[in-house]
């Protein structure tokens, strides 16, 4: 089987080609440093059959500016080419070059060729070249470089057949492979040669139309304006976070009604115990997760939109100074924003940060960003506090929570920057990509994929929880009778209740908090399960909200007040509950001690702060 690696500068279109070749759906964005890990995939079956069942493996690598790595993601590419990695031996390298940046991207192609690898040069961004009114003399480029050259259109896939013909007919050369040495002198010589070559092969054949360069210059006048730029940034962020609530509201109502109908039909038509388990237990719990799909979809779509346009890299530059003040830098912004979707890829994205101290601080604070798993919890508590009458106001509160998580992260970063040894030499040096129109089909598919992952991650956990709670609340049968306090669940709850008493909540909320360690989003379903056992007739969000409003301690005092609700929000804002995040922190820092300290410390701080807030607010009669 033939194995080919895709190597190129950041944002040159490697992942787009990888997706075309393998059929993978790796995320494609418009900023440097999106790919931080190598991916291996077999050739798409359809392509394999088209070329006589030709078998090949494609390796996508993080972007590099040269074969002399400076950051962890660049080391991944270096090790893929020159290390003893686990992937199969590489037959050749496709060097991906941006057609608009040929003069410097050709230097990398020369370096790869000098290392001994057979090279195919793939020129991308053909649509942008066309809009600039230029085309390339490919034959001249081929003869000057002495390697095959293919033009590839990432939108329509043009050029794919040509690439496949080349790799299918490739004859292995078995040359010795060695990483070339880098020096200023050779780099300068190569750059000058490449500039001359680029000048020779670029042909201006028509007037520029909708030039991306001109559009970028115009947009940057506003988006990078020293004053207006910040206003636009805050308006965009507030709009995104607020829309998660108010835009999703009508769709959530539809899902809520549907599951309400399913629950009632099930409990009415299936005999008592089984009907009770399926209706009030399982369906109700699954509905408790599915109802948040519109919010997850809108959040993913919004972040995808920002990522694909090229705006994010600019925000990184815009807020470099404020981030430097807390020990971070502009390069930390993109991983932090990714943390709003999920902390795991966001922590991996810190590999792009060259300063080890800054990278460590970013890894520590990313779990504070309000990830999509926190969204259902926030939505439930905001709904409880504000009701359904003012979705826009509730949306603004949601935005405040998101900005609050940034504030928590900033405070933690400042503290860590004082505690962590070493000088912080933050690096910015960031390419600002040309603005591109978002491809909505791709964005919708990405948002759909995120929503699907959300359900499939939480689904199995909810099924198990529903089974455990159903068993716990209905057994031992002979003793329960008319006294549910004797059930296994109630007995267990009474044992753990002292731990949650300082937070002002009872064992049922405590059960939800413990369940959230399996997956945060499960909190809502676990609450629905725990509160339905008290005999509430309604199901779904409305049912849970009314159960929360009516829930009292034995002495008749309400459990859910403003104080306890804000306390829960504080807890969820700070506590690290995601085991996958702990595992990725261990992987990236190489230390269990760091990962476990982060887990324990964040939970202790979250618990302590929540207790203080609950009691302070109670003192004010809230």
């Amino acid at each position, binding site marked *: 089987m033939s194995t080919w690696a895709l190597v190129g500068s950041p944002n040159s279109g490697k992942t787009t080609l990888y997706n075309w070749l393998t059929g993978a759906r790796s995320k494609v964005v418009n900023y440097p440093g999106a790919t931080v890990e190598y991916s291996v995939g077999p050739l798409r079956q359809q392509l394999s059959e088209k070329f006589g069942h030709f078998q090949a493996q494609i390796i996508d690598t993080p972007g590099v500016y040269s074969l002399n790595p*400076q950051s962890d993601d660049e080391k991944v590419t270096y090790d893929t080419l020159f290390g003893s990695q686990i992937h199969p031996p590489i037959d050749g390298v496709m060097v991906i070059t941006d057609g608009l940046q040929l003069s410097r991207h050709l230097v990398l192609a020369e370096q790869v060729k000098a290392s001994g690898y057979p090279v195919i040069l793939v020129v991308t961004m053909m649509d942008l070249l066309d809009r600039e009114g230029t085309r390339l003399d490919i034959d001249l480029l081929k003869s000057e470089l002495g390697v095959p050259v293919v033009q590839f259109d990432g939108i329509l896939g043009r050029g794919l057949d040509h690439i496949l013909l080349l790799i299918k007919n490739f004859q292995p050369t078995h040359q010795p492979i060695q990483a070339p040495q880098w020096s200023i002198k050779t780099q*300068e010589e190569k750059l000058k040669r490449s500039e001359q070559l680029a000048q020779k092969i670029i042909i201006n054949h028509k007037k520029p139309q909708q030039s991306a360069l001109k559009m*970028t210059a115009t947009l940057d006048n506003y988006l990078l304006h020293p004053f207006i730029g910040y206003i636009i940034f805050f308006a965009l962020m507030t709009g995104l976070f607020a829309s998660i609530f108010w835009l999703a509201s009508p769709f959530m109502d539809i899902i809520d009604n549907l599951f309400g109908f399913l629950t009632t039909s099930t409990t009415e038509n299936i005999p008592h115990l089984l009907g009770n388990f399926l209706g009030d237990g399982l369906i109700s719990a699954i509905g408790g997760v599915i109802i948040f799909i519109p919010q997850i979809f809108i959040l993913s779509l919004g972040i995808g939109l920002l990522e694909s346009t090229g705006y994010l890299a600019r925000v990184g*530059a*815009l807020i*470099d*100074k404020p981030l430097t003040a807390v020990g971070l830098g*502009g390069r930390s912004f993109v991983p932090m924003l990714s943390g709003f979707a999920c902390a795991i890829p966001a922590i991996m994205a810190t590999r792009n940060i060259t300063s080890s101290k800054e990278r460590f601080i970013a890894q520590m604070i990313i779990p504070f960003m309000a990830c999509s798993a926190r969204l259902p919890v926030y939505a439930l508590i905001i709904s409880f506090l504000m009701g359904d009458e003012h979705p826009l106001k509730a949306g603004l509160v949601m935005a405040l929570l998101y900005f609050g998580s940034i504030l928590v992260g900033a405070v933690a970063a400042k503290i860590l920057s004082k505690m962590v040894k070493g000088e912080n030499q933050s690096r*910015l*040096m960031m390419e600002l990509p040309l603005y591109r129109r978002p491809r909505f089909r791709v964005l919708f598919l990405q948002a759909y994929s995120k929503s699907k992952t959300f359900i499939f991650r939480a689904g199995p956990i909810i099924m198990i929880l529903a089974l455990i709670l159903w068993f716990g609340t209905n057994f031992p049968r002979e003793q329960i009778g008319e006294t549910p306090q004797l059930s296994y669940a109630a007995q267990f709850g009474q044992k753990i209740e002292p731990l949650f008493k300082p937070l002002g909540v009872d064992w049922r909320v405590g059960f939800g908090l413990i369940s959230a360690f399996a997956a945060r989003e499960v909190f809502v379903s676990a609450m629905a399960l725990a509160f339905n056992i008290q005999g509430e007739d309604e199901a779904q969000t409305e049912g849970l909200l009314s159960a929360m409003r009516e829930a009292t301690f034995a002495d008749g005092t309400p459990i859910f007040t403003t104080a306890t609700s804000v306390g829960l929000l504080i807890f969820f804002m700070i506590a690290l509950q995601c085991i996958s995040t702990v595992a990725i922190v261990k992987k990236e820092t190489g230390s269990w001690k760091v990962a476990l300290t982060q887990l324990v410390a964040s939970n202790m701080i979250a618990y302590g702060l929540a207790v203080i807030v609950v009691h302070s607010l109670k003192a004010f009669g809230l």
Partner: protein
Amino acid sequence: MNCIVIDRIVAPLSLDPAEGQKIVQRLYELGLHPGVEFKIIRRISFGTVTIIEYGHTRLALNEQEMACLHGRS
């Protein structure tokens, strides 16, 4: 917009030598070298970040990185 032709790319003495060398290397890798003309587009982030443009490339540089580029208007 201010146009500058690069004379030399050297790290300022205030920078750690190893880090300075890495920054210089990266500037070369990004296509900058003596003789290249670039435009200063604007200064953002409270004046600490400079946006420069050369060819089809726009680059954001912090104060230390910008201090490595020596040239004439």
